[in-house]
């Protein structure tokens, strides 16, 4: 597959402050890429370089095979962008804003703007200054998608969206990727985007420290399982050596097991005893994610 976004040794310093350094990133067409890192790690620096809002100190970047410096207008025609710190023209209504941006993009009407607004439950007739943070974010999402772009660059897209809208938004992302568009989603919280991304890249202090398939990350994810047995003499040893099991703690009838990856062996082992309840806790990808940070800082 072709790369929709490709950066090569992309470096940006603000004076002596490092934004990003030697960043190599590749995002394929049809791919949803999660770009993760704490605030100030360099996520927005990367994203704003792609749109030619800021200019790299060295290295370069390509979007759809075009150079971000030389062909910025051609790139921006085919890119949808949701700024991280979204501020809209407050005095306009949603409709006026979309119409304005559509004219600047030279597209028919407002493209898919009306359907998108309806989908997200957004009233386009209200002045933007009267909208809640979540509704403003919806306007931002609609303007990013309305011209059916080939590449979407969404900086912290889910901030302020309520869960129902997030669900609809995730659908929209999945559909857009199925149509062959590439999506770059940045976030500082993995759980916000783990359901929609194919791959995640972790950026830390300006460096891309890891890129992982989300499935591989899930396989490495650690889940905690609480099993309550009918009897209190179930031996912890029966679980200690099962594949993936990291830790077993016994408190009378309750057995708490920490498992990495599939839980099949554990469930089968538990089935040999009389089980009252099994409670599982969502695998915490965040923990896996953070372990990269720990490793990296140990190394440094």
């Amino acid at each position, binding site marked *: 597959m072709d790369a929709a976004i490709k950066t090569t040794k992309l470096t940006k310093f603000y004076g002596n402050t490092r934004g990003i350094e030697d960043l190599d990133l590749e995002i394929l067409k049809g791919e949803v890429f999660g770009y993760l890192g704490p605030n100030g790690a360099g996520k927005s620096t990367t994203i704003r370089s792609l749109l030619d809002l800021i200019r790299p100190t060295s290295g370069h970047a390509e979007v759809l095979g075009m150079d971000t410096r030389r062909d910025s207008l051609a790139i*921006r025609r085919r890119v949808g*962008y949701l700024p991280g710190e979204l501020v809209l023209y407050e005095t306009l209504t949603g409709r006026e804003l979309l119409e304005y*941006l559509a004219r*600047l993009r030279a597209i028919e009407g407002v493209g898919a703007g009306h359907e998108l607004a309806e989908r997200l439950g957004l009233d386009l007739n209200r002045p933007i200054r009267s909208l809640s943070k979540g509704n403003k974010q919806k306007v931002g999402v609609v303007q990013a998608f309305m011209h059916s772009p080939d590449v979407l660059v969404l900086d912290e897209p889910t901030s302020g969206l309520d869960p129902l809208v997030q669900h609809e938004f995730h659908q929209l992302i999945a559909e857009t990727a199925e149509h062959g568009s590439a999506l770059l989603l940045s976030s500082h919280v993995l759980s916000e985007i783990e359901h929609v991304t194919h791959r995640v890249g972790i950026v830390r202090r300006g460096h891309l420290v890891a890129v992982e398939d989300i499935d591989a990350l899930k396989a490495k994810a650690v889940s905690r399982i609480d099993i309550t047995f009918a009897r209190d003499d179930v031996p912890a040893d029966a679980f200690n050596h099962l594949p993936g099991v990291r830790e077993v703690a016994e408190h009378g009838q309750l057995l708490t097991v920490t498992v990495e990856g599939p839980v099949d062996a554990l469930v089968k082992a538990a089935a040999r005893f009389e089980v009252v309840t099994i409670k599982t806790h969502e695998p915490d990808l965040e923990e896996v994610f953070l372990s990269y940070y720990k490793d990296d800082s140990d190394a440094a």
Partner: protein
Amino acid sequence: MQLDICFRNLRDKRRALIGWCIGLAVLTLFTMAFWPTIKGTPQYDRLLRRLPDTLKAFVGNQPLTTPQGYLQTELFLYLVPLLFMIYAIGRGADAIAGEEERKTMDLLLSTPVSRRRVVLEKYTATVLGMGLLALVLVVTLYVTAALFNMNIGLAELVAATIGAALLSLAFAAVALAVSSSAAKRGLAIATASALATAAFFLNSLAPLADSLKAFQKFSPFYWYLGHSPLTNGFDFKGLALLVAVAAVMVATAVARFERRDVSV
């Protein structure tokens, strides 16, 4: 040329612009309403003649009882350029730095519009707004001159008004250049205002000091008023110099904005 950004800018500021027009018309009307009284009071001129040269430099050194002298002293020396410049410098300073300070520039520049286009359209909006103010001034002056029996030609009124407008647009372009370079609206206003003030003093005071006399003709205020447009009509050389300054500053603004990072 597409003008979406320009018209958006004008529409967003239409209430303020209407306010400016009304204020300017009312001020002009009041000033002109005093003309019949002043005209019949030659003592003013005798008083003015007795002023020391340094003060004369500031009150205009013109007889108040002629239409040209009255209009120059009361309107075109201070009030009109001051008002025009407050408007124009404000708009020029806001053009780029304003969108950056309000954090809407990222959104604007995520669309396929070049930075050159943004700068040019924003300045065009300032030119059109200035043009409307100039039109309001000329019309008000022409109507009130007839109303209060002032004998002054339309061509002279137009010449002086266009001069004041171009003077203001030149300093608006200075503000635009700073706005495009530094993303700081306050700095743009301060720089353009300081230069305008310096230009004003250079024009007013240079004739008083032999050492400075030669420099008067470098003041944009001199290009605007040095030829006495209310008496002599258009001075195309002076106006061309004002346009040239504006053009150089706008070109600088484009070059500077094209080259730098958009601030967060």
